[in-house]
């Protein structure tokens, strides 16, 4: 019995020693993970640099929290105001633009609030609220949730009442619920295209520049968390914004559609696609 315990404990210790291998921990969002983007670009990065990337896919709010505690080396998240605050407070350094996609409004095919021909997203949201059509909100402090609340604020609406459902869950769970409840919801385009349980849900509104969804990469400040692998993390950040990394992002396709548009400064090789990259103005 004691011998088995010793063997098991030494196995666990061996694993801890194994953790000294070359890898970085990236806290990011479910949208980048579930769309399959990481599955395509990270193996390219690893092949070129020999650095493994361990991805923790959570909401933007939780990713920033993981970064603040020093439990990750680098973040890839999507909510600019929170990112700026994170850097200003000294938790992160060297924030750079990487890419963007956009949010789309999906809902039941019958479109009870008639949002399909809205002039902009604020009008679409106003129609949903006025008709008290069911709307599913993430309600989880994720980047998507923060963005949705900003749009309600722009519309001058305080969403309350039985039509406004806060799921407190991830994008997938919220879409699963929307399908059953025939409710509207807002999702990023990448998650929407790959989502496997659409049922009667369809994309009803998209294309407003106000639905722009930019992703930024941030290194965790080594002055605050000396144990972070800032050197390796910086190699990753530089790769993401390099022509090679930007091309890898641009070349990523879901069912033939471009899902993320690279927009790092000085990008030369970006492949532009007007349908997938409506906010492209640079």
């Amino acid at each position: 019995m004691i011998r088995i315990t010793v063997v098991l404990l030494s196995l666990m210790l061996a694993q801890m020693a194994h953790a000294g291998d070359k890898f970085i921990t990236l806290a990011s969002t479910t949208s980048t993970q579930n769309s399959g983007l990481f599955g395509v670009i990270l193996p390219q990065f690893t092949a070129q640099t020999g650095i493994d990337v361990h991805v923790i896919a959570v909401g933007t709010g939780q990713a920033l929290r993981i970064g603040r505690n020093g439990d990750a080396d680098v973040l890839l998240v999507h909510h600019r105001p929170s990112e700026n605050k994170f850097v200003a407070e000294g938790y992160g350094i060297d924030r750079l633009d990487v890419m963007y996609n956009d949010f789309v409004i999906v809902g039941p095919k019958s479109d009870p609030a008639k949002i399909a021909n809205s002039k902009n997203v604020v009008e679409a949201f106003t129609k949903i609220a006025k008709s008290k059509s069911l709307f599913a909100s993430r309600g989880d402090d994720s980047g998507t949730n923060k963005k949705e609340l900003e749009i309600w604020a722009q519309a001058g609406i305080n969403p309350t009442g039985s039509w406004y459902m806060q799921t407190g869950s991830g994008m997938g769970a919220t879409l699963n619920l929307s399908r059953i409840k025939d409710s509207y919801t807002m999702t990023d385009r990448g998650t929407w295209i790959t989502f496997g349980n659409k049922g009667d849900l369809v994309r009803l509104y998209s294309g407003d520049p106000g639905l722009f969804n930019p992703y930024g990469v941030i290194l965790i400040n080594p002055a605050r968390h000396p144990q972070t692998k800032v050197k390796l993390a910086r190699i990753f950040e530089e790769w993401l914004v390099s022509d090679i990394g930007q091309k890898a992002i641009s070349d990523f396709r879901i069912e033939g559609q471009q899902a993320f548009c690279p927009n790092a400064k000085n990008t030369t090789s970006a492949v532009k696609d007007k349908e997938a990259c409506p906010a492209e103005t640079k």
Partner: protein
Amino acid sequence: MEMLTQAWMLVVQGDPHLMQIIGLSLYVSLTASFLAAVIGIPLGAALAIWSFPMRGVLVVLSTSFLALPPVVVGLSVYLLLSRAGPLGELGLLFTPTAMIIAQTILITPIILALTREAVLPLRREYDALLLSVEAGGWLKLRTLIWDARYGVVTALLAGIGRALAEVGAVIMVGGNIDGVTRVMTTTIALETSKGNLELALALGTVLLTIAITINASIHLVSLFGRRYEVTR
């Protein structure tokens, strides 16, 4: 149905990615069950055998821990192992070791409470006998655990089952990192969130099959044990 066939084809063909996930599930949950047994069985038996001040409090506490939601255990271990936490120096967060720690905390109370229940009636039966041979504490403990072994095995099985089925704690302290801390339950949660409900369900049947295999083999072992006893 199509997904069910597809998922099982992956198992039959020994898909390396799925095999790695199943392997990690077994490694984490069985290690945690073993550690929990090492802690929980002697403690549970001791609680049944000896009376000492505060025993009642300990019994109530240990059974109350059965109600601990895995997420709460995960959160506690998370805060403990986070770089900002007291054990942050070890760098254990988001590793299989963190998952083992969380599951050990989660299932030790189960094994402890069920062991106590198995030993309690035997203690009453054997009290006079053990007293007459002036058995020491250690001998008493070993004798009673051995005689209650079938109940103790049930306790262990309940622990293994809970560990294998649990998702809330391991997803929190493991981070569900592909190829590093992704296990069966977190894969099922991930596929559900991607809307791949059939695949998620199919993976659930794979997990159930693993549980049935473990339970059946332990059941067989104890069956042989009982038979051997009768014919001895």
